[in-house]
């Protein structure tokens, strides 16, 4: 396999001039984004460098049989995802930490295990951090987004469409029946990005993972197989997480006496 062309720090600085050019445009057009763009250059460099070192460390340790480093990294990944998702919910929702913990952990871990055990099983990939962590990252990131979008949309609708829900309750609907249209809207909104990306992938978008593998010298056909698997697992993780998050949100939004909180 042909080795990847290395990128040095100097090369990165040259690449960074692209953003410096964007800063100049921002200044010229008075967009007021110069500061953000500058921090973007610095932070993306520092954050990704740190991630690189962490991945290097975990992959090496896991290679030595110290599997618990992989679990630790997974735990941190899930924890950050839960924290980020609940931070995006601006409306009050009692127990939202629990809702997102259950939804993101079960939605992500189930799909990750499925892929590791049933798809990549012949190669015992669960011992190889270079498989587990990138896959987990993609799954968790998408699960987080889908869960946050679903819950955010749902609790927003619960406030603006309160009359509709209470009217249904007053007509003898259970909470699940009363929120049926809201649940449908929230889940569709959360899942549509995954579905749309399945529909356009390869035509208008070449996903980062696939292009990365191709640059790394992988046979494009194999890279494509990986990408297909990734698209499928992202869709499933988004769906599972959003559905579980909405079930939890419905539970938290009503009292035992089927009253809207």
């Amino acid at each position, binding site marked *: 396999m042909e080795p990847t062309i290395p990128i040095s720090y100097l090369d990165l600085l040259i690449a960074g001039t692209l953003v410096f050019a964007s800063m100049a445009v921002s200044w010229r057009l008075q967009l007021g984004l110069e500061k953000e763009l500058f921090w973007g250059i610095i932070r993306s460099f520092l954050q990704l460098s740190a991630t690189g070192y962490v991945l290097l460390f975990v992959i090496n340790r896991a290679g030595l049989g110290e599997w618990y480093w992989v679990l630790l990294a997974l735990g941190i990944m899930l924890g950050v995802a839960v924290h980020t998702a609940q931070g995006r919910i601006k409306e009050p929702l009692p127990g939202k930490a629990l809702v997102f913990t259950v939804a993101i952990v079960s939605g992500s871990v189930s799909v990750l295990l499925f892929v590791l055990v049933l798809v990549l099983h012949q190669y015992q990939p669960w011992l190889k951090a270079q498989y587990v962590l990138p896959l987990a990252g993609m799954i968790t990131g998408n699960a987080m987004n889908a869960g946050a979008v679903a819950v955010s949309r749902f609790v927003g609708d619960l406030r603006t469409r309160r009359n509709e829900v209470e*009217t249904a309750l*007053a*007509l*003898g609907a259970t909470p699940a029946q009363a929120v049926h249209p809201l649940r449908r809207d929230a889940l569709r909104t959360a899942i549509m990005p995954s579905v749309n990306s399945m529909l356009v992938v390869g035509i208008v978008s070449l996903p980062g993972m696939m292009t990365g593998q191709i640059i790394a010298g992988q046979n494009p056909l194999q890279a494509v197989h990986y990408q297909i698997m990734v698209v499928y697992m992202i869709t499933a993780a988004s769906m599972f997480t959003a559905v579980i998050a909405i079930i939890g949100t419905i539970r938290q939004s009503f009292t035992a*006496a089927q*009253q809207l909180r």
Partner: protein
Amino acid sequence: MVSTAKRWIPDTSPHLQENPTAYPKINSMADKITLRGVTVARPALVGEEMQVLQILRDVSLVAPAGGRLAIIGPSGSGKSSLLRLLNRLDDPASGEILLDGVPLPQLEPVALRRRVAMLFQQPTLFDDTVLANLAYPLKLAGRTLSTEEAATLLVEVGLPDELLERRARQLSGGQQQRVALARALALSPEVLLLDEPTSALDEESTAALLAALLRRNAESGLTLVMVTHTREVLLRLACPTLLLSGGTAELYPDAESALAVVTQRRLEVA
């Protein structure tokens, strides 16, 4: 009416709060709704802090089956909040509410709400046909509504049955409120709670709505509990009237005596 009117007078004497069972039982067979020492509280933003404010204290009364009760009071006096307790959209902070002598918490909420229906100030029809809206509560109950039955309901509220296939949200406000009433009546409830249902209606719709309500009340014994701020509606209902103001409830045997007190105290009620 004089003899029944007496039964509407709330008993707020202290023994009641200490010992609810001491409440005088009067012909409990016909008691539809009983309130015993009901206190209404709701969270409110005081300055920057959320506090639970008592908006109504120690309301006790008995509403007879097949009767009518009007609730009036200035805005913010707790009229809607009190009404929402009766089908358990909310619960009282303290006190007890009974339907046919059974405390509401002992009833399944869905079953309770099928017996005690509610019409809101703003009609919220689902974005579907009028027929689908009328059939909705029956569908929830696992039943169906025939086109004939739906047409009968529409005629009952003074609307032509051609409207059945129309999109509900394209009707006028007055028509929508009448469809909402027909929908609330579709399950033949025992009690109908009405939260200022005529506040946004023109005269024709108001008259049609009241006519339908009074007919159900007279012919089927539907118990009516209506919050209103319209003098004409109150006089048309011609029934015992609960006046809420300053955190307390006072019951008057008829609309006129309640309105006299309203005038005397210069309350912004009707």
